[in-house]
């Protein structure tokens, strides 16, 4: 005989304002199987929880319904309370009177009626809840980090230093990501490579880290604690074991005119190459697309000059399978393609460049060894116009969101430029200056006040190239309320930050959600910012939203902490919401086996004592089952059910709505 307790929360005024809580409590008390129905100002408060615990003990409750906010908010809180009072936590359910009722309705009688229905639904459900006990699954204490930029490096280092194994996968030939391409970093102007390269070396040399550059994750199966991951290592055509990184090969390579990805196409690279001198690992790879030997079958210079015979033209892609307990996704960002802006030359004006190109121009290791020289004619620009929000905050042509870091790096660019070209003129067009962050606004002020950058609030309507090579920049000064025209030698567009191309396919492979802009979705925007909704997969860096270096590093460390927490136990407890097969009535049509998204249902042979097969049935692997219940709905003989959402429970819920 069920003994249900119902607890109605006013949530201060939030529920009480539109729902007559005492009336709901009274109605609940009348419901069959309910032995107590009470209301209270704040159920989640300590006295509120005490009230529930006391009732569980005194009234020997077999089930509890807390009618309050969304279960996404406080279900764990109340279930913990129930457990503390000795009631199996899965015998407690929540009715969502706040998000689903009081906040969305005004009419008090109607809202109260609906609230009573919502309570009744849960009362009927909870009467049919069974005790459930967390399932423990073994944890493989190795983490996979996808992406070798600063976020991935930081996450890998923190996990490795925490004493756990890490597999760090980077798709390009070297670690470093975008940060390695920056000249200086805001707001301190310390040299990017000087602070990054030691980390790159450290992570590569770390005994707990397996570094896999020039590799991509191609398949992910399994679940938190034991993911099965397939990684494709692209053919390098250079044997890393024997290569000493002497560089003879790329000095001699005859194919010299390939636009360097690292230098944002401002400089060339060879067909056999290391992306940049400080690359880690500092071993070249051959770009099969451009290598004469691999395309035309003649050349072979690198093989001839290689002192250790490390060149292997017959190298092929290889696949490795690894088992990991957690995954950190740090796939980063790229710049939005501003060729969509016809008014800015549609990408056809050589001297209209993006932020990374300016970084490479300003970088001592760049194609101009740190001198600001414009691409078209190598002249030192006397006037440089910087345009912020290029693609950002432009729902019609670009992206609707603010890219967050452009205000800061544009300020940095003006300072770098003014330091290198003292008599040069740096003009910035901006919509707003968003410099929230430690020392950030001071940095922008410095650009304006100390380094004399001219900030103009307004948009640029058109850029065109006059026959004398000047870039005519027409815009509006919306503070002065006048149109402005500037004759510039170089224009730098602060292009929007967008997720990597293919971010969506990666998400589908991982089974994580992404938003309309293809940024990966965190489990909760405030309270779970580094977890995804998929257990065991965490986010770090700009793949989740535009971020600067400190934010990326902070999130990476947070993700690492989550991983280490997960790895701190040999086994982890999972919500016991799993499907079960009634083997007596299963006829093994295999529909469920075909259906299961997790391949969690297997053929199981029922044998007699002599080991003769009696018949075969479907059986659920608890470890693999994630509890979606899709199998339950395809079973014609209804021989599968889902703990926590059994047919009996759901039908009882439906019945209450008659």
């Amino acid at each position, binding site marked *: 005989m069920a003994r249900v307790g119902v607890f109605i929360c006013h949530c201060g005024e939030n529920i009480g304002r539109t729902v007559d809580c005492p009336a709901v409590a009274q109605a609940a008390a009348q419901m069959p199987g309910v032995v107590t129905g009470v209301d209270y100002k704040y159920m989640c408060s300590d006295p509120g929880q005490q009230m529930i615990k006391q009732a569980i003990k005194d009234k020997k409750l077999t089930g509890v319904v807390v009618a309050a906010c969304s279960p996404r908010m406080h279900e764990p809180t109340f279930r913990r309370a129930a457990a503390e009072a000795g009631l199996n936590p899965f015998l407690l359910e929540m009715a969502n009177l706040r998000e689903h009722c009081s906040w969305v309705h005004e009419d008090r009688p109607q809202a109260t009626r609906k609230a009573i229905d919502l309570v009744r639904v849960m009362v009927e459900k909870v009467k049919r809840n069974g005790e459930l006990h967390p399932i423990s699954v073994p944890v493989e204490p190795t983490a996979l980090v996808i992406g070798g930029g600063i976020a991935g490096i930081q996450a890998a280092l923190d996990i490795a230093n925490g004493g756990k194994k890490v597999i760090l996968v980077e798709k390009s030939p070297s670690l470093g990501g975008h940060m390695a391409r920056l000249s200086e970093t805001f707001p301190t102007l310390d040299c990017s490579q000087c602070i990054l390269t030691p980390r790159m070396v450290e992570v590569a040399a770390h005994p707990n880290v397996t570094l896999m550059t020039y590799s991509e994750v191609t398949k992910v199966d399994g679940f938190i604690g034991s993911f099965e991951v397939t990684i494709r290592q692209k053919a390098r055509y250079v044997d890393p074991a024997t290569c000493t990184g002497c560089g003879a090969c790329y000095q001699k390579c005859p194919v010299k005119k390939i636009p360097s990805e690292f230098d944002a196409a401002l400089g060339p690279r060879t067909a056999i190459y290391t992306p940049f001198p400080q690359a880690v690992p500092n071993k070249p790879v051959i770009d099969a697309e451009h290598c004469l030997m691999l395309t035309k079958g003649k050349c072979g210079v690198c093989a001839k000059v290689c002192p250790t015979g490390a060149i292997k033209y017959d190298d092929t892609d290889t696949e490795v399978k690894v088992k990991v307990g957690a995954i950190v996704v740090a796939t980063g960002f790229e710049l939005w393609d501003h060729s969509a*802006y*016809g008014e800015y030359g*549609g990408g056809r004006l050589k001297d209209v460049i993006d932020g990374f190109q300016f970084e490479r121009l300003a970088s001592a290791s760049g194609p101009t060894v740190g001198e600001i020289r414009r691409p078209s004619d190598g002249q030192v620009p006397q006037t440089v116009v910087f345009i912020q929000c290029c693609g950002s905050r432009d729902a*019609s042509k670009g992206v609707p969101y603010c890219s967050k870091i452009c205000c800061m790096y544009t300020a940095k660019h003006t300072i770098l430029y003014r330091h290198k070209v003292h008599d040069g003129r740096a003009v910035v067009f901006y919509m707003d200056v968003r410099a929230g962050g430690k020392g950030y606004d001071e940095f922008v002020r410095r650009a304006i006040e100390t380094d004399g950058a001219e900030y103009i609030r307004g948009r640029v309507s*058109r850029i*065109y*190239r006059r*026959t004398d090579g000047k870039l005519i920049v027409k815009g509006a000064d919306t503070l002065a309320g006048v149109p402005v025209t500037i004759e510039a030698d170089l224009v730098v567009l602060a292009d929007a930050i967008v997720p990597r191309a293919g971010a969506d396919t990666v998400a589908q492979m991982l089974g994580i959600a992404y938003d309309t802009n293809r940024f990966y979705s965190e489990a909760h925007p405030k309270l779970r910012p580094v977890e995804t909704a998929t257990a065991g997969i965490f986010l770090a860096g700009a793949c989740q939203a535009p971020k600067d270096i400190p934010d990326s590093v902070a999130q990476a460390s947070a993700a690492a902490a989550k991983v280490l927490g997960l790895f701190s136990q040999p086994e982890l407890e999972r919500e016991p919401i799993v499907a079960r097969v009634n083997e007596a009535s299963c006829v093994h049509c295999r529909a469920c086996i075909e259906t299961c998204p997790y391949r969690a249902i297997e053929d199981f042979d029922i044998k007699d004592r002599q080991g003769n097969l009696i018949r075969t049935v479907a059986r659920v692997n608890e470890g693999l089952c994630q509890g979606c219940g899709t199998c339950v709905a395809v079973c014609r003989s209804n021989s599968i059910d889902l703990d926590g959402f059994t047919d009996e429970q759901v039908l009882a819920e439906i019945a209450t709505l008659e």
Partner: protein
Amino acid sequence: MTTIGYYPGCSLHGTGRELDMSIRALAEVAGADLKEIEDWNCCGASAAHSLNHDLAVALPYRTLALAEEQGLTEVLAPCAACFSRLKGTAVRLSRSPDLAAKMQGITERPYKGTVRILSIIEFVNRLLKEGLAGKLTAPLGGLKVAPYYGCLLARGKDIVEGDDAEQPTAMEAALAAAGCAVVPWNFAVECCGGGFSMSMTDAVVDLSHAILADAEEAGAQAIVTGCPMCHSNLDMRQQTINAAGLGPHDLPIVYLSEIMGLAAGLEPERLGLNRHFVDAMRVAERSA
């Protein structure tokens, strides 16, 4: 022979006579039948939409309703402003049944939305597809032209379809077909001062001067336009601009339809080339 509705609007009866003449002549060569909408009324351009939204929609609505009533499925509005008003109205109506109902109430005429509005550029490209291309017997021998779209022929994402408002290219194929060389220039969509032609002439002088200057800079021998306002600002104002000490300019401003007519071997007079302020007959000499 294709029948296309024709909405000349006020300009083509006034400052834009050449546009009217050349369009009709071109249509005749191409074997298209232009059927002027009976009892058409003002499109409301430049004035109505800054005064009264309902009026600004009702005026074009009535014309559209008439066209539909008279069995026209396509209507050519050569004047860029008329085109913008008519097409803009059609788009608004298609979006809002309420607005359509309201307009039906005001004008006491139904409109089902079956009429398609053509700009002069769409019209010319259409004729080319339907045989005009074959009739261009007198190409202009590489005349260097700067295609000038101004504002109304390039803007409004849903009004001007299939072209980049910031870098329009819709005229280029036609001009090439007519034997012109399109020069790359920067002012194809800059403002000529259209709306201020009368009220703030000096502003127009500066703006139009900049356009003329860039075209000359780019080596253009003529500016090709599809808009009567642009035309009058650039053609009629050149003296004023020169008098203001800017320039000197001496650049023929011709309509797309005039160029196509010439290429089709029509006499310049029939196209109204002799009616321009800046001598445009020299352009005709190029065609043979």
